[in-house]
């Protein structure tokens, strides 16, 4: 497919690159404890970028009949007529790192296997007065990229995801606890066990509602609750924000901005993760990129175009769909050293990651409402809690409602009170719980 499209470019454009993607998804969903639906989808599409007269154009389509490919090329050329001039060099053929992205067991798993995984979770999570929804999905596909500089790469992938949500309504109090697991292969018994115990533990501790504390307090942000803390950094460490002049970290490379124990890296080569890949969507070989090392800012992530405009090289972080132009994005974001927050094998993770001992009065934050609203990149946040627990004398005493936490992540991450022993994957991010001191907690 890629060669067919590139062949149609000859003489009409100086250069170009193509992404081809085919994905088949299969999934089952349980609603209120019952298996309710089974679904399948398949999608194939092509994204084409061309360079004509030094200008860039992009077009995409899911209409892949041969007679439609000329239309695709014509649309990309029309796009280039309006495009900004840019000296964009497509990568030549380069050796690719070896990273497993495809699990034959996941591809071969029959529907019954997915149903069985869901049913086990539903049965284990069932309890009086609670609605349990579970979904299990599996995707199998292929990504191929190629360009007129001769690069051509393709890989097959699989991905499995399991989501579990328990809703409990008592009067006008609504409690919702959600967690999910994902990987390239089917979950092991231990994976499902961890997912079950994570949901069950957070539910049990939430049944009792207590008054929120108030003041500048120590707060443990769980791997899920860290979203609000890490979002400003994710935005500030994108080469795009640096290029636009809106990143507070732009001129601080080499500077100790964070706690000495704080590190952040993006690693597309982690085995078993659905976002891992040997090559990015623009044909650049994948590699691990250190963003923050021992508190010191080390670099940013770039795609081809942002790198060309910024006068640097792509770090292999081009992300691209069938429609629209490629953009900068992360793959697997890793907070701290992966080994550092690891718990003892076989030991169930405890909410709070072992950071509650000695905490006289504080909070564990697992979910905040409205993360991403407002002026995120500046680092200031102020959010009501979605799911949070009060800590008194080293123990969780219950769930708090009607409270809000606020602070500035650049100030809070300067001194980290502790790293939890509950490091885990939360979607495409690996992190342990973090204890941050002096977070402002207000109640209403």
């Amino acid at each position, binding site marked *: 497919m890629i060669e067919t499209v590139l062949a149609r470019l000859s003489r009409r454009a100086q250069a170009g690159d193509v992404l081809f993607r085919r994905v088949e998804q299969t999934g*089952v969903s349980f*609603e*209120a404890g019952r*298996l*309710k*639906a*089974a*679904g*399948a*989808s*398949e*999608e*194939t599409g092509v994204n084409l970028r061309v360079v004509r007269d030094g200008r*860039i*154009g*992009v*077009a*995409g389509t*899911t*209409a*892949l009949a041969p007679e*439609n490919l000329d239309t*695709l090329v014509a*649309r990309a050329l*029309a*796009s280039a*007529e*309006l*495009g*900004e001039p840019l000296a964009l060099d497509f990568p030549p053929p380069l050796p690719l790192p070896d990273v497993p992205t495809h699990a034959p067991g996941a591809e071969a798993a029959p529907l019954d296997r997915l*149903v069985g995984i869901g049913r086990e979770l539903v049965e284990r999570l069932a309890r009086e007065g609670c*609605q349990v929804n579970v979904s299990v999905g599996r995707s199998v596909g292929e990504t191929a990229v190629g360009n007129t500089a001769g690069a051509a790469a393709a890989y097959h992938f699989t991905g499995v995801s399991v989501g579990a949500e328990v*809703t409990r*309504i*008592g*009067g*006008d*109090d*609504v409690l*919702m606890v959600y967690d999910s697991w994902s990987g390239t292969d089917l979950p092991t018994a231990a994976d499902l066990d961890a997912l079950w115990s994570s949901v069950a533990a957070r539910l049990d501790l939430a049944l009792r509602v207590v008054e929120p504390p108030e003041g500048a307090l120590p707060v443990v942000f769980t791997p899920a609750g860290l979203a609000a803390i890490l979002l400003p950094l994710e935005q500030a460490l994108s080469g795009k924000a640096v290029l*636009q*002049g*809106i990143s507070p970290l732009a001129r601080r490379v080499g500077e100790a901005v964070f706690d000495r124990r704080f590190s952040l890296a993006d690693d597309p080569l982690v085995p078993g993760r659905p976002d891992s890949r040997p090559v990015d969507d623009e044909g650049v070989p994948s590699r691990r990129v250190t963003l923050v090392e021992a508190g010191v800012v080390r670099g940013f992530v770039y795609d081809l175009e942002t790198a060309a405009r910024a006068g640097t090289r792509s770090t292999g972080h081009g992300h691209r769909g069938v*429609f*629209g*132009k490629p953009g900068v994005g992360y793959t697997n974001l890793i907070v701290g050293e992966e080994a550092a927050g690891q718990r003892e094998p076989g030991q169930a993770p405890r909410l709070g990651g072992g950071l509650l001992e000695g905490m006289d009065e504080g909070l564990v934050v697992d*979910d905040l*409402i*409205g993360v*991403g*609203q*407002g*002026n995120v990149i*500046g680092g200031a946040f*102020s959010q*009501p809690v*979605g799911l949070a627990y009060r800590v008194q004398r080293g123990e969780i005493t219950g769930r708090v*409602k*009607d409270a809000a936490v606020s602070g500035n992540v650049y100030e809070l991450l300067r001194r980290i009170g502790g790293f939890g022993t509950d490091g885990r994957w939360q979607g495409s991010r690996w992190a342990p719980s973090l204890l941050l001191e002096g977070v402002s907690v207000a109640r*209403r």
Partner: protein
Amino acid sequence: MKDRLADAVKRARSDYAEIRVEHTWSSSVVFRGRRLEAATASEDQGGFVRVLSRGYGWGIASFTSLDQLPAMLRRADELSRAVPLDEPIRLADVAPTQADAVLDLGGDVRGVSLAEKKRLLEAYNGEMLSVSERVVDTQASYHDEVTEYWYANSEGTLIYQLRPEVVVSGTATARRDGVIEKGLESVGLRSGWQRVQDLGGRFRGAAERAVALLDAPRVRGGTYPVILDPELAGVFIHEAFGHLSEADFVYENPQAREMMTLGRRFGRPILNVGDHGAAPGLRGTLPFDDEGVPTQDTPLIREGILVGRLHSRETAARLGERPTGNARALSFRHPPLVRMTNTYIGNGEGSFDDLIRDIPLGVYACGAFGGQTLLENFSFTAAYGRMIRDGRLAELVKDVVLAGNLFQTLDRIDRIAGDFRWNQMGGGCGKGGQFPLPVTEGAPHVRIEEALIGGDVPA
């Protein structure tokens, strides 16, 4: 195409079968600062099949290769039969419909060159950049679509639609030293090229607001009488109340049903709320939903009392109520879910001045940067605010975040003005991984006698 679909559903092995096919032409232009990011045109096509047989659950298939229709129906049937159910899924009765609905395209965007679309957006982007040296960054985007849509089910419903969409949005970022502020403008319409001309003044206004906010103080946190402008009031009723009225939230959950019992008092007698999927000329309007059910005006709260909810055929059958035409899917890639269309707070009486006259100290919260609800709790960030002092509008303030509990807040709405308007913005609603679904919100000015405003809280 219609004959192909009608034939395919007739021959399906399942007791019930439906097919949607869509073919969409779209184009997008994006500016960032003075630089064009991209100007692209795309073509997307595909189909969706959903089947049901007695004793089994839903079987669903979606695909981008249209020559596989019969194979996809067989696949969906196999999937359905992998889901045995002791309690059958029933669909509420709907009269079969045959209809051709060619919507007013408002100037077919397919006849306008990409270069013209770029020029239009460049002009709006230029309006924002020219406001002040302090406007350091902008984002401006134009997106249009025309979709040919076919729907057929095995009960004899057969629908064709030709429908447009156009969205123009801009964000201006103003900066002075370390202070960064934003101004937003967005217009989203189920229409076309003619309706997005002459918007320069609105984009200029967004940049002027961003610059003005640089000098505005943060609102002092605390409890105030708060007046929501029609835009924020609309976003509030959609987010904080509308999602709870979607019947898929309650139909399998006895405790949720209890919380949302019809007849429960939610507000004072002045409060009326509804969802109107058939309101002429709005972005959330279509003649039929994605189950072929005609859209309608559905009252949700009447004189303060909960009187209705939004349904798909499945949730309506389950609760013994009537379908409302609210089963909507983002595209052929997705199954229909219970969704809002054009959600509104009904008109009240009197003017804005009547609402503020007797307020010694209060906050006028305008526009919405965003809002999120976690069921009964919500948080909304207003684009900007004005203090109300001694019954009159006073200084501009920023960082106006409204947080609260739905039940308490609805009950504290004590005045509703008679200046209703619909707010047709871009973006849209997200649910179950389907975003952005085109919706509209409408409201007059609404007064909450007491609400918590975040911001600097005095120590």
